[in-house]
Protein backbone atom coordinates (compact mmCIF):
# COMPACT_ATOMS: atom_id res chain seq x y z
CA UNK A 1 0.00 0.00 0.00
CA UNK A 2 2.84 2.37 0.85
CA UNK A 3 6.40 2.18 -0.46
CA UNK A 4 9.14 4.77 -0.51
CA UNK A 5 12.35 4.87 -2.54
CA UNK A 6 15.45 6.61 -1.20
CA UNK A 7 13.65 9.62 0.24
CA UNK A 8 15.77 12.69 0.91
CA UNK A 9 14.80 16.05 2.28
CA UNK A 10 16.55 19.17 3.56
CA UNK A 11 15.33 22.36 5.14
CA UNK A 12 17.02 25.43 3.67
CA UNK A 13 20.78 24.73 3.66
CA UNK A 14 20.75 22.80 6.89
CA UNK A 15 21.34 19.09 7.38
CA UNK A 16 20.05 16.65 4.81
CA UNK A 17 17.75 13.94 6.04
CA UNK A 18 17.89 10.70 4.13
CA UNK A 19 15.37 8.11 5.13
CA UNK A 20 15.41 4.33 4.88
CA UNK A 21 12.99 2.80 2.41
CA UNK A 22 9.66 2.04 3.98
CA UNK A 23 7.06 -0.49 2.99
CA UNK A 24 3.74 -1.15 4.60
CA UNK A 25 0.82 -3.08 3.13
CA UNK A 26 -2.83 -2.75 3.98
CA UNK A 27 -4.04 -3.88 7.43
CA UNK A 28 -0.42 -3.78 8.59
CA UNK A 29 0.94 -1.48 11.26
CA UNK A 30 4.37 0.10 11.04
CA UNK A 31 5.99 1.92 13.92
CA UNK A 32 8.54 4.61 13.09
CA UNK A 33 10.70 5.23 16.14
CA UNK A 34 13.39 7.72 16.81
CA UNK A 35 14.54 10.43 19.18
CA UNK A 36 13.74 14.09 18.74
CA UNK A 37 15.56 15.74 15.84
CA UNK A 38 15.96 12.58 13.81
CA UNK A 39 13.32 13.80 11.32
CA UNK A 40 10.35 11.69 12.38
CA UNK A 41 7.80 14.41 11.75
CA UNK A 42 9.55 15.41 8.54
CA UNK A 43 9.25 11.85 7.32
CA UNK A 44 5.59 11.79 8.27
CA UNK A 45 4.99 15.03 6.38
CA UNK A 46 6.75 13.55 3.34
CA UNK A 47 4.72 10.36 3.54
CA UNK A 48 1.45 12.18 4.00
CA UNK A 49 2.27 14.44 1.03
CA UNK A 50 2.36 17.64 3.07
CA UNK A 51 5.98 18.13 2.03
CA UNK A 52 7.63 17.32 -1.26
CA UNK A 53 10.83 15.25 -1.09
CA UNK A 54 14.09 16.62 -2.53
CA UNK A 55 14.83 13.19 -3.94
CA UNK A 56 13.09 9.86 -4.17
CA UNK A 57 9.39 9.18 -4.27
CA UNK A 58 6.42 8.00 -2.26
CA UNK A 59 4.04 5.42 -3.72
CA UNK A 60 0.61 5.15 -2.22
CA UNK A 61 -1.93 2.67 -3.59
CA UNK A 62 0.58 1.94 -6.39
CA UNK A 63 0.58 5.52 -7.57
CA UNK A 64 3.85 7.43 -7.70
CA UNK A 65 2.81 10.64 -5.95
CA UNK A 66 5.71 12.66 -7.31
CA UNK A 67 4.00 12.57 -10.70
CA UNK A 68 0.98 14.42 -9.32
CA UNK A 69 0.72 18.19 -9.56
CA UNK A 70 -0.17 20.44 -6.62
CA UNK A 71 -3.93 20.30 -7.17
CA UNK A 72 -4.29 16.58 -7.82
CA UNK A 73 -1.98 15.84 -4.92
CA UNK A 74 -4.31 17.75 -2.61
CA UNK A 75 -7.27 15.71 -3.88
CA UNK A 76 -5.26 12.51 -3.66
CA UNK A 77 -4.30 13.26 -0.08
CA UNK A 78 -7.88 14.02 0.89
CA UNK A 79 -9.09 10.71 -0.53
CA UNK A 80 -6.24 8.32 0.33
CA UNK A 81 -4.52 9.66 3.41
CA UNK A 82 -5.86 10.06 6.92
CA UNK A 83 -3.73 12.00 9.37
CA UNK A 84 -3.92 12.05 13.16
CA UNK A 85 -1.83 15.04 14.17
CA UNK A 86 0.20 15.23 17.33
CA UNK A 87 -2.04 17.99 18.60
CA UNK A 88 -5.79 17.74 18.28
CA UNK A 89 -6.56 20.46 15.77
CA UNK A 90 -10.18 21.34 15.01
CA UNK A 91 -12.27 23.99 13.37
CA UNK A 92 -13.35 25.49 16.64
CA UNK A 93 -16.53 27.12 15.42
CA UNK A 94 -17.96 23.75 14.42
CA UNK A 95 -19.21 21.04 16.77
CA UNK A 96 -17.85 17.48 16.94
CA UNK A 97 -20.17 16.02 14.32
CA UNK A 98 -19.55 18.90 11.93
CA UNK A 99 -15.80 18.54 12.37
CA UNK A 100 -16.11 14.91 11.32
CA UNK A 101 -18.17 15.52 8.17
CA UNK A 102 -15.82 18.40 7.30
CA UNK A 103 -13.47 15.64 6.11
CA UNK A 104 -16.17 14.50 3.66
CA UNK A 105 -16.73 18.02 2.45
CA UNK A 106 -13.07 18.88 1.96
CA UNK A 107 -12.40 15.50 0.31
CA UNK A 108 -15.24 16.14 -2.15
CA UNK A 109 -17.29 13.24 -0.79
CA UNK A 110 -20.99 13.45 -0.01
CA UNK A 111 -21.64 14.40 3.61
CA UNK A 112 -22.09 11.17 5.57
CA UNK A 113 -23.54 11.90 8.99
CA UNK A 114 -24.35 8.26 9.53
CA UNK A 115 -20.74 7.27 9.18
CA UNK A 116 -19.77 9.97 11.65
CA UNK A 117 -22.32 8.59 14.11
CA UNK A 118 -21.08 5.01 13.55
CA UNK A 119 -17.47 5.94 14.13
CA UNK A 120 -18.44 7.92 17.20
CA UNK A 121 -20.23 4.84 18.49
CA UNK A 122 -17.20 2.63 17.83
CA UNK A 123 -14.80 5.09 19.43
CA UNK A 124 -17.09 5.75 22.36
CA UNK A 125 -17.92 9.42 22.00
CA UNK A 126 -21.40 9.14 20.56
CA UNK A 127 -22.81 11.28 23.35
CA UNK A 128 -20.44 14.12 22.45
CA UNK A 129 -21.42 14.58 18.81
CA UNK A 130 -23.29 17.85 19.27
CA UNK A 131 -20.78 19.32 21.74
CA UNK A 132 -18.27 21.99 20.98
CA UNK A 133 -14.79 20.59 20.45
CA UNK A 134 -13.27 22.88 23.08
CA UNK A 135 -15.48 21.29 25.74
CA UNK A 136 -13.92 17.85 25.25
CA UNK A 137 -11.11 16.38 27.34
CA UNK A 138 -7.73 15.64 25.76
CA UNK A 139 -8.46 11.93 25.39
CA UNK A 140 -11.85 12.61 23.84
CA UNK A 141 -10.34 15.10 21.41
CA UNK A 142 -7.76 12.52 20.39
CA UNK A 143 -10.49 9.99 19.62
CA UNK A 144 -12.41 12.55 17.56
CA UNK A 145 -9.21 13.16 15.58
CA UNK A 146 -8.88 9.44 14.92
CA UNK A 147 -12.50 9.24 13.80
CA UNK A 148 -11.95 12.19 11.48
CA UNK A 149 -8.94 10.47 9.89
CA UNK A 150 -11.19 7.48 9.19
CA UNK A 151 -14.12 9.41 7.72
CA UNK A 152 -13.08 9.04 4.07
CA UNK A 153 -11.88 5.42 4.47
CA UNK A 154 -8.32 6.28 3.39
CA UNK A 155 -5.74 3.76 2.18
CA UNK A 156 -3.10 4.89 4.65
CA UNK A 157 -3.47 6.31 8.14
CA UNK A 158 -0.66 8.32 9.69
CA UNK A 159 -0.53 9.03 13.38
CA UNK A 160 2.01 11.50 14.76
CA UNK A 161 2.76 10.80 18.43
CA UNK A 162 -0.87 9.87 19.06
CA UNK A 163 -0.21 8.74 22.62
CA UNK A 164 2.40 11.16 23.93
CA UNK A 165 -0.09 13.15 25.98
CA UNK A 166 -2.04 10.18 27.31
CA UNK A 167 -1.78 8.06 30.45
CA UNK A 168 -1.09 4.33 30.26
CA UNK A 169 -4.73 3.31 30.17
CA UNK A 170 -5.69 5.75 27.44
CA UNK A 171 -2.49 4.98 25.55
CA UNK A 172 -3.51 1.36 25.35
CA UNK A 173 -7.05 2.30 24.31
CA UNK A 174 -5.94 4.66 21.55
CA UNK A 175 -3.45 2.11 20.18
CA UNK A 176 -6.24 -0.49 20.16
CA UNK A 177 -8.64 1.83 18.39
CA UNK A 178 -6.13 2.85 15.74
CA UNK A 179 -5.21 -0.72 14.99
CA UNK A 180 -8.75 -2.05 14.99
CA UNK A 181 -10.27 0.74 12.93
CA UNK A 182 -7.56 0.71 10.26
CA UNK A 183 -8.03 -3.01 9.93
CA UNK A 184 -11.79 -2.57 9.52
CA UNK A 185 -11.31 -0.21 6.56
CA UNK A 186 -8.30 -2.15 5.29
CA UNK A 187 -5.80 0.67 5.59
CA UNK A 188 -2.09 0.64 6.33
CA UNK A 189 -1.36 2.25 9.70
CA UNK A 190 1.86 4.17 10.26
CA UNK A 191 2.62 5.50 13.72
CA UNK A 192 5.46 7.90 14.35
CA UNK A 193 6.41 7.91 17.99
CA UNK A 194 9.06 7.89 20.65
CA UNK A 195 6.61 6.34 23.10
CA UNK A 196 8.22 3.13 24.36
CA UNK A 197 4.86 1.82 25.54
CA UNK A 198 3.94 1.28 21.89
CA UNK A 199 7.26 -0.37 21.12
CA UNK A 200 6.35 -3.51 22.96
CA UNK A 201 2.97 -3.67 21.31
CA UNK A 202 3.81 -3.46 17.59
CA UNK A 203 6.54 -5.67 16.23
CA UNK A 204 6.92 -4.09 12.80
CA UNK A 205 9.32 -1.23 13.53
CA UNK A 206 11.79 1.10 11.89
CA UNK A 207 14.16 3.23 13.92
CA UNK A 208 15.56 6.44 12.46
Amino acid at each position, binding site marked *: MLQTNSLKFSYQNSQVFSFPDICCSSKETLLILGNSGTGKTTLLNLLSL*LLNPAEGNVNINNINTSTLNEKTRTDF*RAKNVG*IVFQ*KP*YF*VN*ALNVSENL*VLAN*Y*LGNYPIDKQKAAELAQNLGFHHLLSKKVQELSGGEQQRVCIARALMNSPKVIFADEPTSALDDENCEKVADLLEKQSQIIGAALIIVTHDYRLKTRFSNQITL
Partner: protein
Amino acid sequence: MLLKIVWKNIWAKKLNSFLCILLMMFGISIISLLINIGNQLQDKFSKNISGIDMVVGAKGSPLQLILSGVYQIDAPTGNIPMSELQSLQMNPLVKQVFPLSMGDNYQGFRIVGTIHPYLKHFEADYAEGVGFKTNMEVVIGSTVAKKLKLKLNDSFASSHGLEKEGEAHGDKKYKVVGILKSNNSVIDNLILCNLNSIWEIHEHEDVEMHEGEAHEEKQNITCALVKFRSPMGLMTIPRLINQNTQMQAALPAIEINRLFELMGIGIDAFKALAIAIMLISGISVFVTLYNALKERKYEMALMLSMGGKRLVLFFMLMLEGLILSISGFVLGIILSRIGLFLASRLLDQNFNFNLHLTMLQKEEIYLLIAALLVGIFAALIPSLGIYKINISKTLAND
Protein backbone atom coordinates in the same frame (compact mmCIF):
# COMPACT_ATOMS: atom_id res chain seq x y z
CA MET B 1 -20.94 23.43 4.42
CA LEU B 2 -18.76 26.35 3.49
CA LEU B 3 -21.54 28.82 4.29
CA LYS B 4 -22.09 26.99 7.54
CA ILE B 5 -18.46 27.44 8.51
CA VAL B 6 -18.62 31.10 7.56
CA TRP B 7 -21.81 31.58 9.53
CA LYS B 8 -20.52 29.69 12.56
CA ASN B 9 -17.32 31.70 12.53
CA ILE B 10 -19.25 34.95 12.47
CA TRP B 11 -21.47 33.64 15.24
CA ALA B 12 -18.50 32.45 17.30
CA LYS B 13 -17.27 36.05 17.36
CA LYS B 14 -20.60 37.65 18.13
CA LEU B 15 -19.28 40.83 19.70
CA ASN B 16 -16.70 41.54 17.04
CA SER B 17 -19.16 40.84 14.26
CA PHE B 18 -21.78 42.94 16.00
CA LEU B 19 -19.37 45.86 16.20
CA CYS B 20 -18.51 45.61 12.50
CA ILE B 21 -22.15 45.45 11.50
CA LEU B 22 -23.12 48.23 13.89
CA LEU B 23 -20.51 50.64 12.54
CA MET B 24 -21.39 49.83 8.96
CA MET B 25 -25.08 50.19 9.79
CA PHE B 26 -24.68 53.66 11.25
CA GLY B 27 -22.44 54.86 8.44
CA ILE B 28 -24.85 53.62 5.80
CA SER B 29 -28.00 54.83 7.51
CA ILE B 30 -26.69 58.35 8.07
CA ILE B 31 -25.61 58.70 4.45
CA SER B 32 -28.78 57.13 3.13
CA LEU B 33 -30.94 59.35 5.33
CA LEU B 34 -29.09 62.44 4.13
CA ILE B 35 -29.45 61.36 0.52
CA ASN B 36 -33.16 60.71 0.87
CA ILE B 37 -34.05 63.85 2.76
CA GLY B 38 -31.80 65.96 0.54
CA ASN B 39 -33.32 64.55 -2.64
CA GLN B 40 -36.87 64.93 -1.49
CA LEU B 41 -36.39 68.44 -0.16
CA GLN B 42 -34.71 69.51 -3.36
CA ASP B 43 -37.43 67.85 -5.38
CA LYS B 44 -40.20 69.51 -3.44
CA PHE B 45 -38.51 72.87 -3.36
CA SER B 46 -37.78 72.94 -7.05
CA LYS B 47 -41.24 71.70 -7.95
CA ASN B 48 -42.94 74.49 -6.03
CA ILE B 49 -40.56 77.11 -7.32
CA SER B 50 -41.18 76.25 -10.93
CA GLY B 51 -42.36 79.24 -12.86
CA ILE B 52 -42.29 81.70 -10.00
CA ASP B 53 -39.71 84.33 -10.87
CA MET B 54 -40.22 86.80 -8.07
CA VAL B 55 -42.08 87.29 -4.83
CA VAL B 56 -43.07 90.71 -3.55
CA GLY B 57 -44.11 91.37 0.01
CA ALA B 58 -43.44 93.51 3.02
CA LYS B 59 -39.88 94.39 3.84
CA GLY B 60 -38.01 91.85 5.90
CA SER B 61 -35.90 88.79 5.27
CA PRO B 62 -36.05 87.80 1.62
CA LEU B 63 -35.64 84.13 2.54
CA GLN B 64 -38.55 84.37 4.93
CA LEU B 65 -40.66 85.96 2.21
CA ILE B 66 -39.87 83.10 -0.15
CA LEU B 67 -40.45 80.42 2.48
CA SER B 68 -43.79 81.89 3.51
CA GLY B 69 -44.99 82.92 0.06
CA VAL B 70 -43.86 80.04 -2.11
CA TYR B 71 -43.58 77.14 0.34
CA GLN B 72 -46.01 78.19 3.04
CA ILE B 73 -43.69 77.13 5.83
CA ASP B 74 -42.45 80.29 7.48
CA ALA B 75 -44.38 83.19 8.98
CA PRO B 76 -45.17 86.00 6.52
CA THR B 77 -43.17 89.20 6.67
CA GLY B 78 -46.17 91.50 6.95
CA ASN B 79 -48.84 93.03 4.81
CA ILE B 80 -48.78 95.19 1.72
CA PRO B 81 -51.70 97.15 0.27
CA MET B 82 -53.35 95.60 -2.74
CA SER B 83 -53.10 98.91 -4.54
CA GLU B 84 -49.33 98.68 -4.67
CA LEU B 85 -49.64 95.73 -6.95
CA GLN B 86 -51.55 97.56 -9.61
CA SER B 87 -48.56 99.26 -11.16
CA LEU B 88 -46.78 95.93 -11.19
CA GLN B 89 -49.65 94.28 -12.99
CA MET B 90 -49.52 97.00 -15.65
CA ASN B 91 -45.84 96.44 -16.35
CA PRO B 92 -45.41 94.88 -19.81
CA LEU B 93 -42.58 92.61 -18.59
CA VAL B 94 -44.87 90.96 -16.05
CA LYS B 95 -46.83 87.99 -17.27
CA GLN B 96 -48.87 87.15 -14.21
CA VAL B 97 -49.30 88.22 -10.61
CA PHE B 98 -50.82 85.92 -8.00
CA PRO B 99 -51.80 87.88 -4.90
CA LEU B 100 -51.84 85.76 -1.74
CA SER B 101 -53.50 86.71 1.49
CA MET B 102 -53.02 84.62 4.56
CA GLY B 103 -53.22 84.91 8.29
CA ASP B 104 -55.87 82.40 9.24
CA ASN B 105 -55.82 78.66 9.61
CA TYR B 106 -58.09 75.75 10.26
CA GLN B 107 -56.58 73.01 12.41
CA GLY B 108 -53.10 74.14 11.46
CA PHE B 109 -53.69 74.24 7.72
CA ARG B 110 -53.29 77.67 6.19
CA ILE B 111 -56.21 79.42 4.60
CA VAL B 112 -54.91 81.35 1.62
CA GLY B 113 -56.94 83.93 -0.24
CA THR B 114 -55.93 84.08 -3.89
CA ILE B 115 -57.21 84.03 -7.43
CA HIS B 116 -58.02 81.10 -9.68
CA PRO B 117 -54.91 81.35 -11.88
CA TYR B 118 -52.86 80.42 -8.79
CA LEU B 119 -54.45 76.98 -8.85
CA LYS B 120 -53.98 76.73 -12.57
CA HIS B 121 -50.30 77.58 -12.11
CA PHE B 122 -49.87 74.41 -10.03
CA GLU B 123 -51.94 72.45 -12.55
CA ALA B 124 -54.43 71.65 -9.83
CA ASP B 125 -57.09 69.15 -10.76
CA TYR B 126 -60.36 68.67 -8.95
CA ALA B 127 -61.05 65.29 -7.39
CA GLU B 128 -64.50 66.47 -6.42
CA GLY B 129 -66.50 69.66 -6.69
CA VAL B 130 -65.64 72.94 -8.36
CA GLY B 131 -63.57 76.04 -7.74
CA PHE B 132 -64.55 78.78 -5.27
CA LYS B 133 -66.89 81.36 -6.77
CA THR B 134 -68.29 83.46 -4.02
CA ASN B 135 -67.07 84.57 -0.64
CA MET B 136 -66.56 81.97 2.04
CA GLU B 137 -66.30 79.13 -0.42
CA VAL B 138 -63.07 77.12 -0.21
CA VAL B 139 -61.18 74.55 -2.23
CA ILE B 140 -59.03 72.24 -0.12
CA GLY B 141 -55.85 70.37 -0.98
CA SER B 142 -55.76 66.58 -0.86
CA THR B 143 -53.69 66.36 2.32
CA VAL B 144 -56.04 68.74 4.08
CA ALA B 145 -59.04 66.68 3.00
CA LYS B 146 -57.41 63.45 4.13
CA LYS B 147 -56.09 64.69 7.47
CA LEU B 148 -59.13 66.67 8.54
CA LYS B 149 -61.60 64.25 6.93
CA LEU B 150 -63.39 67.14 5.26
CA LYS B 151 -65.98 66.40 2.59
CA LEU B 152 -67.83 68.50 0.08
CA ASN B 153 -70.30 70.94 1.64
CA ASP B 154 -68.72 70.61 5.09
CA SER B 155 -68.32 73.92 6.79
CA PHE B 156 -65.86 75.12 9.39
CA ALA B 157 -64.79 78.27 11.20
CA SER B 158 -61.21 79.49 10.77
CA SER B 159 -59.03 80.69 13.58
CA HIS B 160 -56.66 83.59 13.58
CA GLY B 161 -52.94 83.12 13.07
CA LEU B 162 -50.98 80.32 11.49
CA GLU B 163 -50.88 78.01 14.48
CA LYS B 164 -53.65 75.71 15.57
CA GLU B 165 -54.36 77.61 18.77
CA GLY B 166 -55.73 80.88 17.56
CA GLU B 167 -58.72 83.00 18.32
CA ALA B 168 -61.63 81.56 16.36
CA HIS B 169 -63.66 83.56 13.90
CA GLY B 170 -66.77 81.80 15.06
CA ASP B 171 -69.40 83.83 13.38
CA LYS B 172 -68.45 83.22 9.77
CA LYS B 173 -68.04 79.76 8.40
CA TYR B 174 -66.26 78.52 5.31
CA LYS B 175 -67.89 75.95 3.09
CA VAL B 176 -65.96 73.31 1.12
CA VAL B 177 -66.93 73.42 -2.54
CA GLY B 178 -63.99 71.63 -4.09
CA ILE B 179 -61.36 69.03 -3.20
CA LEU B 180 -58.15 68.83 -5.21
CA LYS B 181 -56.27 65.76 -6.36
CA SER B 182 -52.89 65.26 -4.78
CA ASN B 183 -50.15 66.71 -6.99
CA ASN B 184 -47.22 66.74 -4.58
CA SER B 185 -46.96 70.51 -4.49
CA VAL B 186 -47.59 73.11 -1.84
CA ILE B 187 -51.30 73.37 -2.55
CA ASP B 188 -51.86 69.86 -1.15
CA ASN B 189 -51.58 71.48 2.26
CA LEU B 190 -53.63 74.60 1.63
CA ILE B 191 -57.19 75.75 2.01
CA LEU B 192 -57.83 78.15 -0.82
CA CYS B 193 -60.49 80.83 -1.13
CA ASN B 194 -60.92 84.15 -2.86
CA LEU B 195 -59.31 87.31 -1.51
CA ASN B 196 -62.60 88.80 -0.51
CA SER B 197 -63.31 86.03 1.96
CA ILE B 198 -60.21 86.90 3.95
CA TRP B 199 -60.97 90.59 3.78
CA GLU B 200 -64.56 90.02 4.78
CA ILE B 201 -63.60 88.14 7.90
CA HIS B 202 -61.10 90.71 9.01
CA GLU B 203 -63.23 93.67 7.99
CA HIS B 204 -65.64 92.62 10.64
CA GLU B 205 -62.94 92.63 13.26
CA ASP B 206 -61.36 95.80 12.04
CA VAL B 207 -64.65 97.59 12.23
CA GLU B 208 -65.08 96.46 15.76
CA MET B 209 -61.62 97.45 16.83
CA HIS B 210 -60.90 100.60 14.89
CA GLU B 211 -64.24 102.03 13.99
CA GLY B 212 -64.24 104.75 11.41
CA GLU B 213 -60.97 103.92 9.62
CA ALA B 214 -60.77 104.45 5.91
CA HIS B 215 -62.19 101.60 3.86
CA GLU B 216 -59.39 101.10 1.32
CA GLU B 217 -56.71 100.43 3.89
CA LYS B 218 -58.04 97.02 4.77
CA GLN B 219 -57.50 95.67 1.29
CA ASN B 220 -54.15 94.24 2.28
CA ILE B 221 -52.49 91.17 0.97
CA THR B 222 -49.55 89.23 2.35
CA CYS B 223 -47.47 88.85 -0.75
CA ALA B 224 -47.69 88.25 -4.44
CA LEU B 225 -46.01 85.71 -6.69
CA VAL B 226 -44.88 87.11 -10.01
CA LYS B 227 -44.12 85.50 -13.34
CA PHE B 228 -42.19 87.46 -15.93
CA ARG B 229 -42.64 87.47 -19.64
CA SER B 230 -38.92 87.62 -20.30
CA PRO B 231 -35.67 87.49 -18.36
CA MET B 232 -35.50 91.26 -18.83
CA GLY B 233 -38.03 91.48 -16.01
CA LEU B 234 -35.64 89.69 -13.71
CA MET B 235 -32.97 92.26 -14.42
CA THR B 236 -34.95 95.43 -13.86
CA ILE B 237 -38.10 94.95 -11.83
CA PRO B 238 -36.72 93.63 -8.51
CA ARG B 239 -34.41 96.62 -8.22
CA LEU B 240 -37.21 98.97 -9.15
CA ILE B 241 -39.42 97.58 -6.42
CA ASN B 242 -36.78 97.52 -3.74
CA GLN B 243 -35.76 101.13 -4.44
CA ASN B 244 -39.04 102.82 -5.17
CA THR B 245 -41.72 101.14 -3.09
CA GLN B 246 -42.47 100.09 0.46
CA MET B 247 -42.31 96.50 -0.72
CA GLN B 248 -39.41 94.18 -1.22
CA ALA B 249 -38.85 91.82 -4.10
CA ALA B 250 -37.15 88.46 -3.54
CA LEU B 251 -36.04 85.99 -6.18
CA PRO B 252 -36.82 82.38 -5.24
CA ALA B 253 -34.03 80.89 -7.33
CA ILE B 254 -31.38 82.93 -5.53
CA GLU B 255 -32.81 82.53 -2.05
CA ILE B 256 -33.27 78.78 -2.36
CA ASN B 257 -29.76 78.36 -3.67
CA ARG B 258 -28.59 80.27 -0.63
CA LEU B 259 -30.66 78.02 1.60
CA PHE B 260 -29.23 74.87 0.04
CA GLU B 261 -25.75 76.26 0.36
CA LEU B 262 -26.31 76.83 4.05
CA MET B 263 -27.80 73.36 4.49
CA GLY B 264 -25.11 71.91 2.28
CA ILE B 265 -22.43 72.74 4.85
CA GLY B 266 -24.31 70.76 7.48
CA ILE B 267 -25.03 67.91 5.10
CA ASP B 268 -21.39 67.73 4.03
CA ALA B 269 -20.26 67.59 7.65
CA PHE B 270 -22.68 64.73 8.32
CA LYS B 271 -21.54 62.92 5.20
CA ALA B 272 -17.90 63.21 6.24
CA LEU B 273 -18.82 61.81 9.64
CA ALA B 274 -20.73 58.94 8.07
CA ILE B 275 -17.87 58.10 5.70
CA ALA B 276 -15.51 58.10 8.68
CA ILE B 277 -17.82 55.69 10.49
CA MET B 278 -17.90 53.44 7.43
CA LEU B 279 -14.12 53.46 7.23
CA ILE B 280 -13.85 52.58 10.90
CA SER B 281 -16.21 49.72 10.19
CA GLY B 282 -13.86 48.61 7.44
CA ILE B 283 -10.91 48.77 9.81
CA SER B 284 -12.88 46.81 12.37
CA VAL B 285 -13.67 44.12 9.79
CA PHE B 286 -9.97 44.08 8.93
CA VAL B 287 -8.85 43.70 12.54
CA THR B 288 -11.45 41.03 13.22
CA LEU B 289 -10.45 38.97 10.21
CA TYR B 290 -6.75 39.55 10.73
CA ASN B 291 -6.92 38.34 14.32
CA ALA B 292 -9.18 35.52 13.25
CA LEU B 293 -6.64 34.36 10.71
CA LYS B 294 -3.88 34.46 13.27
CA GLU B 295 -5.95 32.46 15.73
CA ARG B 296 -7.27 30.17 13.05
CA LYS B 297 -3.97 29.57 11.32
CA TYR B 298 -4.03 25.99 12.62
CA GLU B 299 -7.62 25.53 11.46
CA MET B 300 -6.72 26.77 8.02
CA ALA B 301 -3.65 24.52 7.82
CA LEU B 302 -5.79 21.62 9.03
CA MET B 303 -8.39 22.24 6.36
CA LEU B 304 -5.67 22.55 3.76
CA SER B 305 -4.17 19.23 4.89
CA MET B 306 -7.60 17.64 4.66
CA GLY B 307 -7.91 18.58 1.01
CA GLY B 308 -9.19 22.13 1.21
CA LYS B 309 -8.19 24.33 -1.70
CA ARG B 310 -6.49 27.62 -0.91
CA LEU B 311 -8.84 29.42 -3.27
CA VAL B 312 -11.87 28.04 -1.44
CA LEU B 313 -10.53 29.05 1.95
CA PHE B 314 -9.62 32.44 0.54
CA PHE B 315 -13.21 32.96 -0.56
CA MET B 316 -14.42 31.67 2.77
CA LEU B 317 -12.61 34.48 4.58
CA MET B 318 -13.63 37.05 1.98
CA LEU B 319 -17.20 35.93 2.40
CA GLU B 320 -17.00 36.58 6.12
CA GLY B 321 -15.97 40.17 5.46
CA LEU B 322 -18.59 40.62 2.78
CA ILE B 323 -21.40 39.17 4.86
CA LEU B 324 -20.53 41.56 7.65
CA SER B 325 -20.54 44.59 5.38
CA ILE B 326 -23.63 43.54 3.42
CA SER B 327 -25.66 42.89 6.55
CA GLY B 328 -24.46 46.26 7.81
CA PHE B 329 -25.71 47.78 4.58
CA VAL B 330 -29.12 46.09 4.73
CA LEU B 331 -29.65 47.03 8.37
CA GLY B 332 -28.43 50.54 7.60
CA ILE B 333 -31.00 50.96 4.83
CA ILE B 334 -33.72 49.64 7.12
CA LEU B 335 -32.62 52.02 9.86
CA SER B 336 -32.60 54.92 7.43
CA ARG B 337 -36.17 54.10 6.38
CA ILE B 338 -37.23 54.04 10.01
CA GLY B 339 -35.45 57.36 10.48
CA LEU B 340 -37.17 58.71 7.39
CA PHE B 341 -40.52 57.62 8.74
CA LEU B 342 -39.87 59.33 12.08
CA ALA B 343 -38.55 62.48 10.41
CA SER B 344 -41.58 62.49 8.17
CA ARG B 345 -43.92 62.33 11.14
CA LEU B 346 -42.05 65.12 12.85
CA LEU B 347 -42.11 67.33 9.76
CA ASP B 348 -45.73 66.46 9.21
CA GLN B 349 -46.67 67.59 12.68
CA ASN B 350 -44.74 70.82 12.49
CA PHE B 351 -44.92 71.81 8.84
CA ASN B 352 -47.49 69.56 7.20
CA PHE B 353 -44.64 68.33 5.08
CA ASN B 354 -44.35 64.69 4.12
CA LEU B 355 -41.33 62.59 3.18
CA HIS B 356 -41.93 59.51 1.12
CA LEU B 357 -40.57 56.11 2.04
CA THR B 358 -38.83 55.46 -1.24
CA MET B 359 -37.45 52.35 -2.79
CA LEU B 360 -33.69 52.03 -3.13
CA GLN B 361 -32.33 55.28 -4.53
CA LYS B 362 -29.72 55.44 -7.24
CA GLU B 363 -27.24 56.86 -4.75
CA GLU B 364 -27.91 53.96 -2.42
CA ILE B 365 -26.78 51.53 -5.10
CA TYR B 366 -23.47 53.42 -5.11
CA LEU B 367 -23.53 53.13 -1.35
CA LEU B 368 -23.93 49.37 -1.64
CA ILE B 369 -20.95 49.27 -3.98
CA ALA B 370 -18.98 51.38 -1.50
CA ALA B 371 -19.95 49.03 1.35
CA LEU B 372 -18.87 46.04 -0.75
CA LEU B 373 -15.56 47.71 -1.55
CA VAL B 374 -14.95 48.43 2.12
CA GLY B 375 -15.74 44.79 2.89
CA ILE B 376 -13.54 43.49 0.09
CA PHE B 377 -10.54 45.64 0.93
CA ALA B 378 -10.83 44.96 4.64
CA ALA B 379 -11.01 41.21 4.02
CA LEU B 380 -8.45 41.07 1.24
CA ILE B 381 -5.22 41.34 3.18
CA PRO B 382 -6.17 38.84 5.90
CA SER B 383 -7.60 36.48 3.29
CA LEU B 384 -4.43 36.60 1.22
CA GLY B 385 -2.68 35.23 4.31
CA ILE B 386 -4.18 31.86 3.34
CA TYR B 387 -1.64 31.67 0.54
CA LYS B 388 1.24 32.15 2.97
CA ILE B 389 0.37 29.25 5.26
CA ASN B 390 2.92 26.48 5.26
CA ILE B 391 0.86 23.44 6.18
CA SER B 392 3.54 21.15 7.53
CA LYS B 393 5.33 23.87 9.49
CA THR B 394 2.14 25.24 11.00
CA LEU B 395 0.84 21.85 12.08
CA ALA B 396 4.21 20.60 13.34
CA ASN B 397 4.87 23.65 15.48
CA ASP B 398 4.16 23.04 19.12
